[in-house]
């Protein structure tokens, strides 16, 4: 095996090692013991059944949002607004939970539908603004996310505030029938895992084996050619956004009905933005998404124990994941590095052979 192909093969590990080294140096800079910190994170994530279930419960909505983003990424859409779609899903589920009285087997499906519809419609606004108003989805996404957060805060402090008076932190806990059945007093509901695995399977089949998936792929790679081949970019853009929004909305429902028991301030908890990082790391490979999302969830949950044990702030976990993504984007692909520059693309006008 030649030197370069050997290098190429182990290259994906390089940014991971680099990110770990970066964090180690950071810890040393703060006078902390890297070994202790690492074991605190691992212990915090996997130290007990409770902790594992907590990591899993956090993983579910992150995974749902990431799966949704795979669809919009494939279609070439930067769905930054996913954070807002998640919040809208949480609001949709809360609306049903607060206003409908029914047995769980009716209430829970209703909540799920409301959450998915709310997320999808919120995403559709971004899609329509892009196709009809020529507003880039990044800008509409940021605006719509802010609006969703403002709406959450308004609902908490206004119409949906607890009867004993608002604390501005959340609504009163929902009726028991409205909550997802949870395992062992934890925040994890097996039902949500089943739903997520179904979503994963649907998207896997959709992207690889359906005509719609192929259309999105063409659209993402070259909208102009896709149009000339007969793909309606307007319709597919809106549908892709809605598909992603529905999954993010379901993630929002998981947040209010299983992680919490009520609608809270900043209910999305940055999960949407985290999902963007997950998908960037996965680089279009759907099967990597669950593992990367789980890794993120473990690091972030483990960091809470880190803070309890070592006085270090729990945001260290966020730093580790953030740095990791930056390093992967920076030099994750051996072939794209400066020392093996590819020849410039042939411009359109010089075409003879």
């Amino acid at each position, binding site marked *: 095996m030649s030197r370069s192909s050997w290098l190429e093969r182990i290259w994906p590990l390089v940014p991971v090692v680099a990110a770990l080294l970066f964090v180690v140096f950071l810890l040393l800079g703060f006078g902390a013991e890297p070994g202790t910190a690492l074991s605190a994170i691992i212990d915090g994530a996997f130290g007990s059944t409770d902790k594992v279930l907590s990591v899993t419960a956090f993983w579910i909505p992150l995974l749902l949002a990431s799966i949704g983003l795979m669809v919009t990424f494939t279609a070439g859409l930067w769905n930054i607004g996913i954070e807002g779609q998640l919040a809208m899903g949480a609001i949709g589920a809360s609306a049903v939970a607060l206003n409908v009285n029914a047995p769980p087997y009716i209430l829970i499906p209703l909540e799920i539908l409301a959450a998915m519809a709310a997320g999808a419609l919120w995403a559709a606004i971004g899609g329509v603004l892009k196709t009809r108003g020529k507003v880039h989805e990044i800008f509409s996404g940021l605006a719509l996310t802010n609006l969703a957060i403002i709406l959450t805060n308004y609902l908490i402090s206004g119409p949906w505030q607890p009867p004993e008076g608002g604390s501005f932190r959340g609504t009163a806990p929902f009726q028991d029938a409205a909550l997802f059945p949870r395992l062992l007093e934890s925040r994890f509901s097996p039902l949500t895992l089943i739903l997520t695995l179904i979503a994963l399977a649907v998207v896997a089949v959709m992207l690889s084996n359906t005509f719609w998936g192929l259309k999105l792929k063409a659209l993402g790679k070259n909208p102009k050619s896709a149009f000339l081949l007969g793909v309606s970019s307007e319709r597919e853009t809106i549908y892709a956004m809605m598909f992603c929004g529905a999954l993010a909305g379901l993630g929002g429902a998981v947040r209010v009905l299983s992680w919490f028991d009520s609608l809270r301030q900043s209910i999305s908890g940055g999960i949407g933005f985290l999902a963007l990082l997950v998908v960037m790391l996965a680089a279009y490979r759907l099967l990597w998404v669950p593992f990367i999302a789980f890794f993120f969830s473990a690091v972030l949950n483990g960091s809470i124990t880190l803070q309890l044990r070592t006085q270090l702030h729990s945001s260290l976990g966020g730093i580790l994941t953030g740095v990791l993504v930056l390093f992967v984007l920076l030099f994750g692909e051996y072939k794209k590095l400066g020392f093996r520059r590819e020849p410039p693309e042939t411009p359109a006008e*010089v075409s003879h052979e």
Partner: protein
Amino acid sequence: MRVELNEIRKYFGPVKANDGITITFEEGNIYGLLGENGAGKSTLMKILSGFQPFDSGELLLNGSDATFTSPREALAAGIGMLYQEPLDLPPFTILDNYLLGRDNKVIPDRQAAIQELIELTQRYNFDVDIKAHIDSLSVGERQQLELVRLLAGGAEVLILDEPTTGISAEQKDLLFASMRKLAKEENKTLILVSHKLSEVQELCDHAFVLRKGQMVGETDVPCPNEKLVEMMFGQLPERSPRPSVSLEDTMLSIKEMAIRTYRLSVEGLQLDVRSGEVIGLAGLEGSGQGLFLKACAGLLRPAKGSIQLADKDITNHSYHATLAEGVGYLAAGRLEEGLVAGLTLTEHMILGALERKFMIDWESSREETSKRIEHYQVIGTEASTADQLSGGNQQRLLFSLLNTPLRLILMEQPTRGLDVRSADYIWEQLYERRKDGTAIIFISPDLDEILDRSDRIAVFYGGQMLKVVEASETNVDELGHLIGGEL
């Protein structure tokens, strides 16, 4: 300033855009640089103006070596280029735009700049209100402004890339007058990049002709148009004869159509195409034939008039609705418009097929693809991606994506990048389709191709369908005159 280019080479991968070009431009002259699309003239001028580096060769200004790494450096050395699309920033005022290119001080000296601008615009009789916003100006006015900016920057050599595209006749006269003044009175070197023969004849002292990255000829102008046409397009080997097909009923009927865009208006289009007929659209680029083809495909909505396909009015059909009526469209850019880099040939086939199921049947799609690959002699497998194919094979792939049967095929430069034999094979396939009654309309910069392949030829000039001639009753000379606007 005397500019010498020696053995300039510029390759883009396997494409030799400039393959050892040697040219000398003397001061006080206006030069024409001619050549068809992709001949390498834009590349050469971009090299000269510092927009891109060359791979090898030598650039001498007044006898001394020069290399530029940016247009700014080139302008500092005295070379300025006026691009086809003026490179200004629309929301600015004229003054701000001018200052941006000129003044490096922290606080710009507006008064001095205003004086300079007024003086320069008056010298060349340009009529521009310097307080106006750029986006309120026409293309011609922007061009004048850009010219003034280059002159104020110290340009001794001015390169004008297709400067008359999109400007009015008066602006053109004004531009030409100022160009003559610059060359003859101020002793500057002017280079006009164009494929409009009439303009080169009218304005230039001397013309250089490029073809396939090489200098193939030069001549003093004015000279007979045929001489330039022959140098530009060259002589091609004989082609296989076109089988005659009896032409049936009218397949496509265009009545009183007008297309209006910001660059060009095309008026009074009138054409009936019978089934089985091949119509070649001749004309210099930007004469309106491209807009005509796009309107037929539903990619542009005509401002007035009607398009009828067989017995159906498709005037207001969208592109996708037009496709559904049995129309095939092939654009000129392969990987830009038509193919998707990164998708496999099978995936292209599935996307292009009319029959659309929810789930993809990969097995039968692959079979169908390998059949088509074989039929159209595409060198590649059904799992290759479009960008892995060579240019000629990409072209063949585009043809393999055309469905059967079709009522009308619209093509821009159908055999671009194909060698003579492959082009011949593609045309044989197209002739086969005529038997089913398919009508064909195509654009080609190659007059020989148009003459040999068409039943009738529609010649476009300056936004008009100037004349429709029987291919059997005309020749390259007459066509050369016609596309230059001489009836």
